[in-house]
């Protein structure tokens, strides 16, 4: 049979976002692939050069629309270094709590989308239902369900509301019960294993050569997690295990993410206990008040205030739900950063698509790409 190129995307049930996978096939066999990105390129890095630090937080939420608060966290860590600001301890714990809730929400979203890719409809609804409980918690203390604008240079915007901890603990209990159910539905099912085992294999040394990070790398047996290896926020003060698997295939990535959900709940519980016992400020003292305010700085007559900051650079790295995210912020003394560079883990994981798709069949592409967990917002930025 003759070879040909086909387009999977930009509108295709497999893509989960706007991108195009060009696939060269011979019958059912994939011979070559070429991801085409850029449909969602909004120039967030360029716009950041023209915005105040507070305004960039809004952009960071849009960078990845299923893990907004993780990107806020990443940017804030770099911006604090660049602006020479030290946040109070309680803010660090609230940030860690937020990031873990975001990881749960993001992994549940992944679970819902992934199982739908392989043809299971009910787990999709269960995943979305349980994610909503986490979003309700977000709404109770940030006001937003998807885009939060919650973190600030020097801390977080506001403290947790009264009664938050009880509600959060209830959600944690509920989620742990549901994770058992998910396992019974998927990893306990023979059909699931026949569909997913030995698909999209990337061995550990290939992962490192290709720059792959996150659950994909951990599913190959490499226990690399920046929360453990290079702790930020308060991750060095909580107990948790790094989830790994040995199979390096689609099932392995499923196993890793499911275990990460349990570990996130474990971190959340410890954070809630600590926050109960340690009240205190959530914004640093040496930050101008308007920097913690919910809106952009506006002076008496409606003019924007012009600020000058000391020069500085910031470099931060966090374990985002999808993998290793890096930010580099250069501040040349103006009121806007001179350059903001964001590195997305999905960008790299996707650039290796040729490695884990070639040789499999066309029908294998949706489960494999589903297991990579693609968020086009952070690839294109």
């Amino acid at each position, binding site marked *: 049979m003759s070879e040909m190129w086909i387009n999977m995307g930009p509108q295709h049930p497999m893509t989960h976002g706007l991108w195009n996978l060009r696939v060269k096939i011979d019958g059912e066999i994939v011979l070559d692939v070429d991801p085409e*990105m*850029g449909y969602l*390129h909004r*120039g967030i*890095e*360029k*716009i950041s050069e*023209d915005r105040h630090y507070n305004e960039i937080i809004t952009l960071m939420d849009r960078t990845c629309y299923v893990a907004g608060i993780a990107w806020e966290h990443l940017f804030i860590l770099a911006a604090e*270094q660049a602006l020479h600001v030290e946040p109070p301890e309680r803010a660090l714990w609230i940030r860690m709590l937020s990031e873990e809730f975001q990881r749960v929400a993001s992994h549940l979203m992944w679970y819902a989308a992934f199982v739908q890719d392989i043809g299971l409809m009910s787990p999709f609804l269960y995943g979305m239902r349980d994610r909503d409980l986490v979003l309700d918690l977000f709404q109770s203390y940030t006001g937003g369900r998807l885009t939060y604008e919650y973190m600030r240079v020097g801390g977080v915007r506001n403290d947790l509301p009264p009664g938050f901890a009880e509600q959060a603990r209830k959600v944690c209990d509920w989620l742990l019960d549901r994770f058992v159910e998910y396992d019974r539905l998927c990893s306990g099912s023979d059909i699931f294993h026949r569909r997913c085992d030995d698909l999209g294999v990337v061995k550990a040394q290939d992962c*490192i*050569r*290709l*720059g792959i*990070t996150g659950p994909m790398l951990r599913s190959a047996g*490499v226990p*690399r997690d920046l929360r453990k*290896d*290079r702790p930020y926020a308060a991750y060095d003060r909580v107990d948790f295990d790094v989830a790994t698997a040995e199979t390096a295939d689609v099932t392995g990535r499923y196993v890793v993410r499911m275990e990460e959900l349990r570990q996130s709940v474990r971190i959340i519980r410890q954070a809630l206990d600590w926050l109960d016992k340690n009240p205190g400020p959530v914004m640093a003292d040496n930050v101008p008040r308007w920097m913690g305010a919910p809106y952009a700085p506006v*002076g008496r007559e409606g*003019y*924007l*205030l*012009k600020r000058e900051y000391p020069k500085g*650079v*910031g*470099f931060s*790295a966090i374990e985002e739900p999808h993998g*290793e995210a*890096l930010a*580099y912020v*250069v501040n040349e003394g103006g009121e806007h950063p*001179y*350059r903001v*560079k964001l*590195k997305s883990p999905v*960008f*790299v994981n996707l*650039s*290796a698509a040729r490695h884990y798709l070639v040789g499999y069949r066309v029908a294998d592409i949706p489960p494999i790409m589903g297991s990579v967990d693609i968020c086009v917002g952070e690839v*294109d*930025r």
Partner: protein
Amino acid sequence: MEGEELSRRLVGKFPAVVVEPFRETAGRVRFPPEILLDLFREMRDGLGFDHLGQVGAIDWVEEREVFYTLWSDREKQYVFLSTRVPASAPHLESLTPVFSSANWHEREAWELVGIEFDHHPDLRPLLTPTGYEFHPLLRSFQLHEPEGLEVKVRDV
């Protein structure tokens, strides 16, 4: 690995590099563009920094800076490397022979900041549309104000 050790092990082989402390990493290595491939081979094989994190570029108007982040699983540390090329001839050797994962990063740095990576296997636009002839992250590419909205800025 501490900054001094990194400096000692690198400067012996590459006298032209400068190592300085940088933000909870093993250090920031400034190097001349000619030694790029040799330096990264040494970083990967000799020092164990085998995981490429990112490649990015900054426009400093007269010069353009290209920076790299490497991670070592053995040391549990990042190292930050950077070099500068003149804006009049922004040519730099591609890192793809040493780190194949530099491919997309360099495509992005080329289209956004206009760094010409020599011997890159596939230097096509990645994020911008085909035929787009600007490098949007250059300082000369100005974002214009929305029409009819004047923002006044005042010194305080």
